[in-house]
């Protein structure tokens, strides 16, 4: 374990030294700033309309605040999407990159087991990705709260599900990086991510059109790649009663947001899948020629 932590520490320092962290921070501040400025202008508009209509103010949980609620929802969707992108892109060469540029040989000749190396890489990149997405998500929700006074119902568990998706994607990318070249891995994990999203869309259409076959296909895709289901579960927790009501009346026609809580079994499966992916990566890398 000591060696795995040493590799994790190396991965963290690598992320800082390769300017990954600084580029991310600058761009994220720009993204959050831009988005929150938009919400600030929206809030001013809504307040002005309330005044124009001769009202004293607006209810935070009422229909009049739905634009703000959707802004927070779509903001969190962007956080989830950026987190997924970041998980794949930062980790895509975690093992294969070091093999391709020849760094791996001198490291593996040291008294470190290959399983420890893979575990350390995963821990290091997971820490970077999870901390990044947690900060981004918290910054967005706090920003919305400070500007509008609105906070989604269960922000912490919702963020937790997004972070689980990030952990899973990082684990799958580490596994791909022990199996394929860096490029093939990046494409492969993105296609898998797309499969999860496709599953969500099929499920939504299947439910909307009352087609059990389509819904079953969607559920199968969710099991193969639960990231989108985790996001839908997270979005459920972020919606106040007003939005859930809209969702139910449209029979879940919006594939971006879920109108049902995620099944606990699926959350456990996502965690198990992440652990399995890391274990498979450790096993696979131990049997590979360098």
């Amino acid at each position, binding site marked *: 374990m000591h060696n795995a932590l*040493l590799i994790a520490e190396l991965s963290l320092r*690598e992320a800082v030294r390769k300017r990954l962290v600084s580029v991310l921070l600058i761009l994220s501040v720009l993204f959050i700033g831009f988005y929150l400025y938009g919400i600030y202008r929206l809030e001013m508009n809504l307040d002005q309309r309330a005044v124009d209509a001769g009202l004293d103010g607006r209810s935070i949980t009422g229909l009049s605040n739905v634009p703000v609620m959707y802004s927070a929802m779509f903001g969190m969707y962007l956080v989830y999407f950026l987190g997924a992108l970041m998980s794949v892109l930062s980790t895509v060469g975690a093992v294969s990159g070091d093999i391709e540029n020849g760094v791996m040989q001198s490291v593996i000749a040291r008294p470190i087991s290959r399983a420890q190396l893979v575990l350390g890489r995963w821990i290091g990149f997971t820490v970077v990705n999870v901390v990044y997405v947690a900060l981004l998500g918290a910054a967005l929700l706090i920003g919305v709260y400070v500007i509008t006074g609105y906070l989604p119902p269960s922000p912490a568990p919702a963020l937790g599900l997004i972070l689980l998706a990030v952990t899973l994607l990082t684990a799958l990318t580490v596994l791909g990086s022990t199996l394929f070249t860096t490029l093939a891995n990046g494409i492969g994990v993105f296609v898998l991510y797309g499969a999860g999203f496709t599953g969500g869309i099929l499920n939504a259409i299947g439910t909307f059109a009352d087609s059990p076959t389509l819904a079953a296909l969607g559920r199968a895709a969710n099991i193969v790649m639960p990231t989108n289901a985790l996001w839908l579960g997270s979005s459920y927790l972020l919606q106040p009663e007003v939005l859930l009501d809209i969702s139910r009346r449209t029979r879940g026609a919006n594939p971006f947001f879920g109108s049902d809580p995620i099944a606990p079994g699926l959350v456990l499966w996502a965690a198990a899948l992440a652990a399995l992916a890391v274990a498979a990566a450790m096993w696979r890398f131990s049997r590979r020629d360098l």
Partner: protein
Amino acid sequence: MSAAPPPIIETHELRKVYKGRAVVDGLSLRVLPGEVFGFLGPNGAGKSTTVKMLLGLVLPSGGQMRVLGGSPADPAVRARLGFLPEQFRFQTWMTGEEFLHFHGRLAGMKPGELRARVPQVLKTVGLGGRGGESLGGYSKGMLQRCGLAGAILARPELVFLDEPTSALDPIGRVEVREIIEGLRAGGVAVFLNSHLLSEVEQVCDRVAFVKEGRVLQQGSMQELMGGVIPVGIRVDAVKPGLLEALAVLGEVRHTDTQTPGRAEIELWLQHADAVPAVADAIHACGARLHALTPRRPDLETMFLELIEDRPAPALTPEAVHA
């Protein structure tokens, strides 16, 4: 050789097959503690693959090997090894010192020990005072030196050097030779993979020739040459009876009569004492002797003889066979 200490590396019929092609094909080697062992062969002979198997980077397809009495798959064995890869590529975002500290910690060294040891090895490889610079700014030669520092950092018992001077200038090569000699003086065994024959000749105690994944011969320089003295002879013409007379004294390897008015003969003698008798034999046949040059056996001659199409075992029957 059975009375010698147990070998530090011993392989038996080691094989590695990539996609149906045997890169290493029944390779058997012995390296003894504290010796500098030269591993020679043409490009593509399987040298680097063998080194990688001995380090546990590549899994053998067959055969047995023991390194430091165990398997290189065991981290405890690898803790006692040092390695400079042929492709000396390291994390370019690190400084030289960070690189060595990282590798030292992987090797299980304590921080206090590393603080003293890192400047020491940097000085040994000629990078004293340059350890604070980023590896991305190092020249190829500096990177190779830094890799060498990493290889000797954790005071290994056995160091693998894969083409350690490929990026170095002549001064750097001399310095690396001195480092290897220093290691030997400290009782460290060195496995030197190189095709710079003069380099190998100067530092190695024993060598192995490898071709197409098999060891053709291995042994000390003396054993390999079998005490043979090559002698170059130039006479005006090959008179009748001359070659027969020479064949009594030694082995006639080669005759060249292409230039009119002169003939070159390559003769291998078992003893230097026989050189005057060669002159006598030439005179006795009535030939005019223009030159008679006994030479020191050199690795290059051996290498070319062995690696080119000649069947190896016929060459030096006294040599130790793998």
